[in-house]
Each structure stands twice: as C-alpha cells, then as structure tokens.
C-alpha cells in the first residue's frame, strides 16, 4: 500500500490558514496604495445623459475620478470566449458610457488615498439617468418585451439545437409521453471571500503585476494583456490565497482590467476589494433556465426519447463562458440512461440582469435535474418504483465506453454497483415500509433517489474555448527538496497536499519535503486553472507524468554514477539500486580497494545533477521535468444519492431524516479531501433545493442583494451526511482519477426535490420547482394559492 496516496493525509495548507497567517488579496499591503471604489448603476436599464464628477474629484483624499468617457477605447472590452453560430456579443466596456443594462454595472471609479475616502466620494458623483423599461422575465424577453439592445431587434443571444436520434419518431412510438415545465432558479455563488484586485505598475520596468482572487491566473494574464495593451510577458498575475470560487472567479472582470489601468495611470499600487453587496449584484450568477421537458417511455419503463426546450437567461452581457453553459446541459441530458433520441432546443436570451456563467456544476445540475425529475415522472405515471425505472435504463458496466445521443462517450461506469451500495446503506426496502406506515398515520414522509452521472476533467482542448490541458513541472532542488509547479490553481480543494502525496510516494521522499507552487504566472509555466472538476484528473495527471519523466532522467544519472547501464537500475522508496545480479558483477569486476556503490539516494542524484561534475555525455544538468497533459476525453463520475424527508404539516417545513450518498470519482488520492468536496457540494445543493434564489423585481432590482435576504445554508440546516464510495477507475488518465468537485451540486438537488415531491404525492403533487420554501409547501397542504 502506498504510504500517502489513498490515505487521509492532513492538509499541508492548513497551518497557515488556522492561525490567520495566509494571504488573501486584501491581506497584501503595499506602500502608497491607492484605493478604488465604484459607482454602480442604480437602474437595470437606463440611458446616461450626463455624469458630473466635479464635487467628487475635489473631495478629501480623492486622487482621480474616471468615467466611461475617460476610458474610451483605452481598455478593451470584457471578453467572452463563447463561439456559437449566430451568437450576438454585446460590446462590454469596463465602465458604462451612455447606456446601462443591469443594476450594479460600473459607471464611474473613484481613486483615493484610503478606502473610506473612496467610498465617501462615490456619493458625490451626480449621474443624470433616463430610465428605460427593463426586461427581467426570460420568456417575456424571448417573445419580445423591452429590448436590452435596440440594435439587435430582439433579445435572442443565440438559438441552438443539439442531440442525436429521431426525436419525433421516438416520442411517437412511445406508449406515454410526459410533459413538465421546470425552473432552475438563478443562484448567487457567494464565495466567502469576495473578489479583490491589487495592481502594481512599475513604470521603469513597464511591468504590471496583478493580484486577483481568481481561479484562472494564466488565462486572466492573457486577457488582461489584450485588454490593457500591455505585452503579455510584462504582465504577471498572482492568485494568492483564494477564498472560494465555485466558478464565480473563473472569469475576466471589468474591475480586474480597470484597477490595472488605474495603477498604470498613477504609477502606484491600486486596490479594490469587492463589498458583499457588489459581489451579489455584479459577480456572475448561476443557473437561470426555464425549460419544458417531454419524455417518452414504453409501458415497461424503457425510456424512448427526451426533448428539452429551454430558455436560458444570459443576463445583460456575456461574461467569459456565459453562452457555453446551456451547451453543457445539452451534453448531459442522457444522464446515466440509454436514451436513443435526445434533443435540446436552446433559446438564449438577454435580460437586464447580471450575467449568468459557471456556478459549481455549470449547466450539468440543470441536466441532472431534468433527467432525474423526468425519471420520477415516468415512474409515477407507470406506477413503478423509482429505483426500478432507473435500473431498467442503465447501460451495463460492460457497455463502456458508452455512447449517448448527446454525442459523448462515457469513459467507465458501474451504475448498479453504486445504486445497490446506496440502497443497502439506506436500507431502502425498510425505508419504504416505514414510509407506508407513516402515510397511514397521515404523515408526509418522502424518499428521493437520484442516480447521476456528470462530466468532469474538462477537458479535451477540442471541447473547450481555449485549451483543456494542464501543465506541471516537477524538480528536485540541490538539497533534495521537491518543488511542484502546477498550472492548476487550487483555491480550497487541497491540491497542495494531494499533489505532494503523489510526489512523495512516487519519488520516495517525505511529504514535508514537497512544496506545491501555483497561481503565479511568473513562476509557473502556462496553465489553464481550476474549474470543471479538473484539478486532479488533468492537473494531477500532468504532475504524475512529469514525475515519470523526472525519474527517467534521474535513473540515467544514477546508472552513470553507479557505473552500470540504466536498464540495470531499479528505483524504490527513494533509492536507485543496481539489480541484485548486476551488483555481484560490479563488486567482482573492480579490483579497487573501495567497495563500489550499489545504490544511491534520489537526493544524492539531485545534487550530482546540479553540481554536474560527473554526468553522462549529452545529459542536461539539473533535475527537472515538465509535462503538458492533453486528455483524450472527459471523465464521467457517477453515484446515487438517497434522501428521506418529513414535512411538517403545520408549517410546511422540510426536515431531513436521512441523507445517503455513494459517489464514484474513480481513483481517490485523499479520501478526506473527497469527503470534504462531497459535503460542500451537497450543502450547496441543499441551498438550491430549499433556500437560495436570486430574486429581481420587475424593474430589475436585485431584491436578494444581501446575506440577510439571500438565504445560504447554515450549520443548523444540514442533516448528517452518510457517505460511501465505489471506485471505478477512469481509462482516460494513468491514475484512473475522475474528479469530485461538482458531484454534490449535480447529484444531490434532484434527490432532495424528488423526496419532497414524493412526500407530497398523496396530495396529488407530481412536481415542485426550487427553492421549495415552507410557504409554498404550506399553501399546497392547505390548498391556498
């Protein structure tokens, strides 16, 4: 058994974080720093007739005030990486000029000598707006409604049809076709650390350094170089400690470029730290789909076809991946079932709201919600058990790689194994029996099942806008310490630990002798970043591959130092040894007085590689290896979640009684970290299912703009989560890793909704939209609209 890999190794990140000694962006202090605050549009849709900054400019401590007119084309537009046919991409300027399209859009920037002065001066800027009608509802926006952009003539960002198979024929040949409208409400990601940017420009060196709370330092560097017109090799982006992301920091934001530009104007450091209110208004939102499901089935429960017509809310602008998110929904509509014909028709619309984009799961939770709700609808229609209907449509474990009608090849899977394990843990049969008794007593008890599959390890480069590979450099320093430079950009996932575990085992060194460096574009070779559950499956594989290259090189030198051919050297637990048979030959051949060495440690080899006094011909000094790993496919983790709830008939409150989850993320490097990812994901799902919703009023004002109004799950709202795993390795990478970052937010929501629907099914309920608030449930129970 490996010493570290597969073990519950405590995190190497933690000592600095539990003592308050980590450095997030706002913890980095530079002398003479200027503070930036933004005036943001109070209207969701308006013309800007004039802006008067004279009073603000003369306020105490204020150094400068900038408006869109000052910026002009000096800073390029906020980029969108989507490239769909017919996509309309609005010109997204870092400060609005004459037109604002969402409440919270930056209109002016105040630069001052301290953060209080900057905030004070914001209130002194006078903007004369002419308010325009806002379009908020997605279906109204699709039909016409007020236009976000007059010049487009409609609010349609793009339309797309995807899927394979003859859906018309499939639905026609079905015994039953079930229809259901489904709402995936808008969510606000809310990383606990809001965004923040610190920029420092050195006019002499013409170097711009930007510390940003980002998940993608290298991609951000490229985009900032383009936006600011600074050569990319003069821009350094550093993602220091990043306090959570969940996709919300997988982006390029106006403020990141603007703070950089401000630093360049003044030749001083400039800092902006987002307030929570700004974070809720003007950092990307997630989900935001309203769809219509049609699912066809045979009377025996066989699914014949699935159509999903969906209106996807883009918001006013397209951020980095905004238009791409619904396409991920289309890819995953088959769930873990054999469905011959699938069609998705997307109508992506502009609304006067903040952009949607990747929030943990990014399009896949919507797909899972669609198919897992649909499976329950089929079961209810046919009077069958929800487990039976699911099992009937699973591909067998021997059918992988499994091709879906959405164009994917699932790498590996054993859906029945995970299902059976979860059923066993939950004691599903007894659960159902107890439910029957409870119902006989008039209690509202429900059981929900979700058998999910998700798409991870994003991804092959062909399937991504800008590279789906990942990079790693592994080197052994002269003193024998191991340094890993990863292009991944972990921000809580714990890869400083799991990558060190990997290296420590592979190189036979102590875990504490390995340091993992990430998030600094001047230190680390180009990388893609951490999102789409790719950190370990793609980034970890690059580390693994680099280590293998490093060992090959070290073996060459070790053989040279030991006086044998490389083939005669074996490596184990940190030592290169001459194979036993060969060792005897070496010992007998010499005649010299000193005993020839038969083994040498990797640390000694590292020193020899740097000193380079005795190296074989053609051997490059130093001991370092780099790998850029391009995956051949995505990976497809899966699992089963089973939830039992009871509803309080008096209040409509939902009480969890059991939560059982069996997840399969392939090979596990650190089970403790995997559990943590699953816990966090499930709780964000509980948030979506029961509490969270970004609510805008008809004028486009965000009503849930503070944490008082937007309900995040608290410690008291969460049941004890009973976890287990199955382990089906992925054939896509040498370690067999799949990814676990988003499984919880993908697999859990439908299980919770299915449980609540099941609890209310005696009252004739067959579907509920999220969040399932006590008030709504109370109305159903009491037949009050």
């Amino acid at each position, binding site marked *: 058994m490996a010493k570290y890999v597969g073990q519950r190794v405590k995190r190497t990140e933690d000592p600095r974080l539990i003592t308050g000694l980590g450095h997030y962006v706002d913890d980095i202090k530079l002398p003479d720093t200027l503070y930036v605050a933004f005036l943001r549009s109070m209207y969701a849709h308006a013309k800007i007739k004039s802006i008067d900054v004279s009073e603000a400019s003369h306020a105490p401590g204020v150094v400068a005030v900038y408006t869109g007119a000052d910026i002009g084309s000096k800073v390029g537009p906020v980029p969108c990486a989507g490239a769909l046919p017919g996509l309309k991409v609005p010109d997204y300027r870092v400060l609005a000029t004459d037109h604002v399209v969402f409440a919270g859009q930056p209109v002016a920037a105040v630069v001052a000598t301290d953060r*209080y002065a900057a905030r004070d001066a914001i209130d002194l800027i006078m903007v004369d707006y002419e308010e325009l009608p806002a379009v908020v509802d997605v279906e109204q926006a699709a039909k016409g409604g007020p236009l976000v952009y007059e010049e487009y003539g409609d609010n349609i960002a793009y339309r797309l049809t995807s899927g394979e198979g003859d859906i018309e024929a499939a639905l026609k040949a079905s015994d039953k076709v079930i229809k259901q409208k489904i709402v995936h409400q808008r969510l606000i990601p809310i990383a606990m650390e809001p965004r923040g940017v610190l920029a420092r420009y050195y006019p002499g060196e013409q170097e711009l350094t930007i510390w940003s709370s980002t998940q993608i330092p290298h991609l951000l560097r490229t985009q900032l170089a383009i936006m600011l017109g600074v050569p990319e090799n003069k821009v350094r982006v550093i993602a220091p400690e990043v306090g959570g992301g969940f996709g919300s920091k997988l982006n390029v934001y106006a403020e990141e470029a603007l703070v950089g530009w401000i630093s360049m104007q003044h030749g001083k450091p400039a800092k902006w730290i987002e307030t929570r209110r700004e974070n809720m208004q003007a950092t990307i939102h997630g989900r935001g789909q309203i769809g219509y499901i049609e699912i066809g089935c045979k009377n025996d429960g066989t699914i014949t076809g699935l159509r999903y017509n969906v209106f996807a809310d883009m918001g006013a602008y397209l951020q980095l991946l905004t238009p791409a998110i619904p396409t991920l929904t289309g890819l995953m509509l088959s769930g873990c079932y054999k469905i011959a014909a699938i069609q998705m028709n997307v109508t992506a619309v502009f609304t006067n709201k903040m952009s949607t984009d990747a929030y943990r799961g990014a399009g896949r939770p919507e797909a899972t919600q669609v198919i897992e709700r649909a499976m329950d609808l089929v079961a209810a229609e046919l009077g069958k058990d929800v487990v039976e209907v699911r099992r009937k449509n699973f591909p067998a474990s021997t059918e992988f790689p499994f091709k879906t009608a959405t164009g994917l090849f699932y790498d590996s899977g054993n859906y029945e194994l995970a299902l059976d394990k979860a059923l066993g843990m939950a004691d599903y049969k007894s659960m159902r029996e107890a439910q029957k008794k409870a119902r006989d007593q008039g209690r509202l008890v429900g059981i929900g099942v979700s058998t999910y599959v998700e798409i991870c390890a994003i991804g092959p480069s062909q399937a991504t806008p800008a590279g789906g590979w990942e990079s790693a450099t592994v080197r052994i320093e002269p003193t024998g310490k191991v340094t890993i430079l990863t292009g991944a950009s972990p921000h809580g996932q714990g890869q400083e630990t799991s990558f060190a575990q990997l290296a420590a085992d592979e190189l036979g060194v102590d875990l504490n002798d390995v340091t993992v460096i990430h998030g600094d574009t001047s230190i680390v070779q180009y990388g893609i970043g951490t999102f789409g559950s790719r950190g370990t499956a793609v980034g970890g594989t690059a580390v693994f591959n680099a280590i293998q290259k490093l060992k090959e090189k070290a073996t060459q030198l070790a053989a040279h130092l030991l006086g044998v051919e490389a083939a005669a050297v074996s490596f184990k637990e940190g030592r290169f040894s001459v194979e036993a048979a060969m060792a005897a030959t070496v010992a007998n051949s010499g005649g010299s007085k000193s005993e020839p060495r038969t083994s040498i440690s990797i640390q000694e080899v590292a020193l020899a590689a740097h000193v380079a006094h005795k190296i074989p011909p053609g051997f490059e000094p130093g001991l370092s290896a780099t790998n850029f790993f391009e995956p051949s496919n995505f990976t497809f983790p899966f699992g089963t979640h089973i939830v039992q709830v009871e509803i309080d008939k008096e209040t409509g409150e939902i009480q969890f009684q059991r939560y059982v989850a069996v997840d399969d993320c392939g090979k596990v490097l650190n089970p403790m970290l995997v559990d943590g990812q699953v816990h966090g994901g499930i709780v964000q799902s509980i948030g979506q299912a029961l509490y969270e919703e970004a609510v805008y009023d008809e004028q486009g004002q965000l009503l849930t703009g503070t944490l008082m109004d937007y309900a995040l799950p608290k410690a008291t709202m969460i049941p004890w989560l009973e976890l287990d795993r199955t382990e089906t390795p992925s054939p896509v990478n040498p370690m067999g890793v799949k990814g676990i970052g988003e499984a919880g937010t993908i697999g859990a929501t439908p299980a919770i909704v299915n449980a609540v629907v099941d609890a209310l099914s005696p009252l004739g309920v067959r579907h509920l939209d999220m969040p399932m608030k006590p008030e709504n449930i109370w109305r159903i129970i009491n037949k009050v609209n």
Partner: protein
Amino acid sequence: MKKAVSITVNGTTHHSEIEPRLLLVHYLRDVLGLTGTHVGCETSICGACTVMIDGQSTKSCTMFAIQADGSSVTTIEGLAANGALHPVQEGFWERHGLQCGYCTPGMIMSGAQLLERNPNPSVEEIRHGLEGNLCRCTGYQHIVEAVQHAAGKS
C-alpha cells in the same frame, strides 16, 4: 477628528489615534496588520470577522474600533498559546474543517467560545453555536467534527 484609544490586542496594548468611524475589523487589519480576521459581508451575517472582546465573541465588521477602547481583544493570531495550537485549531486541522480557509478564523473563534460555554456540546449544540458563521466550502460536517475533536481534547 481623530480620537485616542488604547486597545489591548493579543496581549499587547496599542495606543492609537483613530477616526471615530473606523471599524474594528479595519483597525485590526489595516492599522495593526493583523489580517487573519476577515471581512465577508460587512453586515454581521457571515461571521468571518469574529474576534473575542473581553472574552466574548463579537463580529468586528459592525463595531467601531473606538467602542473597543480599553478592551482586550483576541484575534485568530493570538489564539495559539506559547506556540501550541488551540484545541479548536488542532481540531480543524485534524478533521479537515476548512477548505478555502476564509471563514476559518471566525469559525475557530466561535468554536472556541462555544467550548468555553459548553465543554461537551452535542452535535445539535455545536451546529447551533456556529449558526452565526457561514461556510460555503465544507458543508459544515467536518467543522462539527473539528469542534467535537477539540471538545475531546480540551
């Protein structure tokens, strides 16, 4: 108009001239350079800014520094004693009670306060005691285990 205050932080008394409107969290972070106390919401909801004032856990983002005049404040940087981690800090490390680490200092301060008031809390009592602190990464279960671990040690 600046005012003179005298505030003891982690055992050291600081005499400072400060604006009356300066928030305690900004005093700790920007004046004293103790950046372990974080700002997460500016509205007392998230608890990332939790510190102890005269032994009582307090959210420092909605309190003026001047209100702490004459008080003794303990921040996350002052929790470990003589180089030994506080049992709650140890628990968080042992039981993977943190991921991104941003809520962690406040969470640990609240956990420490909880155990001072109730050395052997049930799971329910731990969850209740941490209700004023939000975490978006961990789903709270490992945090509950971390506090349980600390209760077993302290």
